[in-house]
């Protein structure tokens, strides 16, 4: 059997014991196996059929469906078709949820305006979700990643993240939620941060950092987060998060060798110059680096 047929049979789970043995002897066997084993990481979500069906039923309106009369003239048929089409259109507008979802990719930032003219600047690799239609009654949005909020005066709303909810009233503040870290900086007005049972108020000029189960409060003299003007800043942040942000801003892969990724880093890097940024994050720890297109290696030279 030729190689291609062997591979196809393997993919379909149809190899005999002997055929499998010869497949395993192929030099590329390891690479096929790795590809195959890791595909499961991309699995689509498993649907809870009961839950979905219940949801489906609630979306369907109980109504008499128009039956086509058997002795229809063309005009009558067209009238029915028109009613059906209009019914369909209205049906969809009324029942659709009007969720707005904004996602940024690596090395991308974007601005959006909320229905009340509040402005949000979203940093790379982040997601925001809110209900545009219901904004007046339900002023809640979900954030995964980092964003800078300028909330119109007198307007209250909530930003939900995996780690806590930030409630605001006419302020300017930055929320950075990456992995298990949550950082909130308030630049103007008042922000209240709720995490589990704690509720911490942050007036302008105050910051809060929650990482590794600890909450640290601090201050800032900035009027807006540095990344909005092109610089990523870190204060007592583990190195692996600095590297993760570097990867996000420059859309590259970084491998760290021979160095403790938990080491605490305080410093910054510019978002528009990769070499300069690399120097900024390696020099403080006397690390060296290698660049190979979009693969970067950072390491300690023994």
């Amino acid at each position, binding site marked *: 059997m030729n190689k291609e047929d062997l591979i196809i049979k393997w993919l379909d789970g149809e190899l005999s014991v002997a055929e499998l043995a010869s497949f395993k002897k192929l030099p590329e066997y390891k690479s096929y196996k790795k590809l195959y084993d890791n595909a499961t990481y991309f*699995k*689509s979500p498993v649907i809870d059929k009961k839950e979905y069906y219940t949801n489906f039923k609630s979306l369907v309106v109980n109504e008499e469906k128009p039956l086509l009369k058997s002795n229809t003239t063309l005009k009558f048929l067209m009238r029915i078709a028109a009613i059906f089409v209009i019914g369909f259109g209205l049906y969809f507008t009324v029942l659709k949820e009007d969720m707005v979802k904004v996602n940024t990719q690596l090395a991308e930032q974007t601005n959006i305006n909320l229905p009340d003219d509040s402005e949000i600047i979203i940093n790379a690799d982040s997601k925001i979700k809110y209900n545009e239609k219901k904004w007046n009654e339900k002023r809640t949005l979900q954030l995964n990643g980092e964003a800078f909020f300028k909330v119109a005066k007198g307007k209250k709303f909530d930003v939900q993240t995996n780690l806590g909810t930030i409630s605001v009233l006419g302020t300017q503040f930055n929320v950075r939620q990456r992995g298990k870290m949550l950082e909130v900086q308030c630049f103007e007005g008042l922000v209240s941060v709720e995490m589990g049972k704690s509720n911490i108020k942050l007036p302008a000029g105050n910051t809060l950092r929650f990482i590794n189960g600890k909450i640290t409060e601090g201050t800032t003299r900035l009027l807006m987060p540095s990344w909005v003007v092109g610089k990523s800043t870190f204060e007592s942040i583990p190195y692996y998060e600095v590297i993760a942000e570097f990867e996000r801003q420059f859309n590259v892969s970084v491998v760290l060798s021979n160095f403790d990724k938990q080491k605490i880093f305080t410093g910054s890097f510019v978002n528009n110059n990769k070499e300069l940024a690399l120097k900024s994050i390696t020099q403080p720890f006397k690390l060296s680096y290698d660049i190979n297109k979009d693969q970067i290696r950072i390491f300690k030279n023994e």
Partner: protein
Amino acid sequence: MKKKLHNNICDENLFSSIYNKYIQDLNDFLYYKFGALLGPEDKAQEAFIKLWKNCDKVSSDKAKSFLFTVANNLMLNEVKHQKVVLKHKATKTDASDNESPEFILEQKQYLEKYQKALANLSEVQRVAFLLNRVEGKKHSEIAEMLGITLRATRKRIYNAVENLRKEIEGI
């Protein structure tokens, strides 16, 4: 006299069995073809709603192709300028694992390359490959689901695998 449809799917028992039969496959198809960001679950629900509204026009043996066609069109309307990004589950990065930091980083890089390579595959190759490997479907099942020949299915899957290997390992 207009001919009445024999199996009218307006009966709730029949409809709910159709729903349970196809909802996961439909969702998987949309997810693998268009990615997670465009709301595949919502489009799948919408397709079923349309089917229900048309229950007196669509027979049960035509239900599957109705659902897949409608859902596909709903997604195409949504696509416009969005890039397809299939998310992989977060690999654990706590040191509580027995894996070394180097392995974890290497794994993360491999998955990122994999993710990009998947997005670069043609839609038809990606869908066929993921249905085969991730959902464990046989080639014959995939051929039936997508309405193509067994030979075409095998070609798509094989080409997907070769393209992925080329892109990820730079062969």
